[in-house]
């Protein structure tokens, strides 16, 4: 199951040239670039691991691409995303966030039906990958 998230989630995976162009756009807006990765694909998992510090004061996408490549090399079988943070007063938040890497095989989610009082059912999803401990998923 191909998991999508963030900006461009409706598009096919971005190529490196496209990633570079997006990062260049973000830098032109004055946003800071951060690279993050995770091996927990749950959609409510917001807090991914940071790959180094967010990069302020970059002028060219080459610097951010170096980090994307380094992160892919160190964690090839994880989800990696690029965040662009806008520090302008009133925003002070992520303005752009898109995925740049995914594991080769994505097993998807188990839908759990939990029967509660009466015959009412509560639904929950659990990722098959996350059944293994952290760091041992997507081998």
């Amino acid at each position, binding site marked *: 199951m191909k998991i999508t998230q963030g900006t461009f989630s409706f598009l096919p995976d971005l190529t490196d040239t496209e990633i570079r162009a997006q990062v260049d756009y973000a830098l032109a807006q004055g946003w800071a670039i951060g690279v993050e990765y995770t091996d927990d694909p749950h959609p409510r998992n917001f807090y991914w691991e940071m790959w180094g510090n967010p990069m302020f004061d970059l002028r*060219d996408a*080459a610097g*951010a691409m170096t980090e994307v*490549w380094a992160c892919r*090399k160190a964690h090839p079988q994880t989800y990696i995303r690029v965040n662009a943070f806008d520090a302008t007063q009133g925003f002070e938040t992520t303005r752009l966030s898109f*995925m740049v890497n995914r594991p080769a095989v994505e097993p998807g989610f188990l839908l759990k039906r939990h029967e509660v009082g009466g015959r009412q059912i509560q639904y929950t999803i659990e990722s098959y990958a996350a059944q293994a401990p952290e760091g041992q998923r997507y081998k």
Partner: protein
Amino acid sequence: MNETPPAPASTGAASRTGAPGAPSAAAPSVAPADSVDLQALLADSNVAEVLDELDAELIGLKPVKARIRDIAALLLVERARRQVGLAGGSPSLHMSFTGNPGTGKTTVAMRMAQILHRLGYVRKGHLVAVTRDDLVGQYIGHTAPKTKEVLKKAMGGVLFIDEAYYLYRPENERDYGQEAIEILLQVMENQRDDLVVILAGYADRMETFFRSNPGLSSRIAHHLDFPDYRPEELEGIAARMLETMQYRLSPSAVAALHEYIPLRMKLPHFANARSIRNALDRARLRQANRLFAQKGRQLDRDALMTIEGEDLRASRVFD
């Protein structure tokens, strides 16, 4: 998405041809032209403007200017070659600037960033000026991230390392400077398209530095030597500085400056244009004092602008 990172050299080359700084450079996918008008290319790049500005605004420095013209010509021809479909591989443009203090190394580096940007060699054309402190960390494991951070900021532009010889301290074998040099070398070699490194410093110490780091020396194609200014060039520089500060010298001050410069040049710690700037700053101070002492007088524009001979002659140099 899962493509492996392409070899940096090829990515850089691909992205550079479409660089915003290269206005009408033909895309390589277009069928190669049969012939190229070098003059039209030159006009397109606006580089002639920058070179003329360089000539007009910087006094002296003949060998440096000649070398910059050579580099500009090389890059233009390289662009022309690409248009007719000749792949030459991008030339290495890392440089070293050697010369005494105040000979204009930083100023020229700034211009160099502009020129390289107009020629489409660097994508953004900004200058990041650093010294040892910005590259070398204070404890184990501190240096690599620090150096990499600076390199990332400089990508797309020019990294200017002032007093580069401080990076290498042979007397301390555990010095972290060596680590910074190694990271630098790696990026200089592999990401040639992403940034240009300029090492600057005093000639004799740079020579020792290059001798003990042959790897660095061999990766630097252009060694530019900045000559000291002659007294008349320094006078010209003083005139240029006063113009930008909106001051002017009275005839007696011109004579005083003419005497001042050779005297100052004989003293220790003479730093060419920087010494001249300091001398002018002190003269402004004395002018302000002089004007303040003349209580009750209405000062006109002329009085506020003029530096008199006495303002310069009060200098220690004349003792």
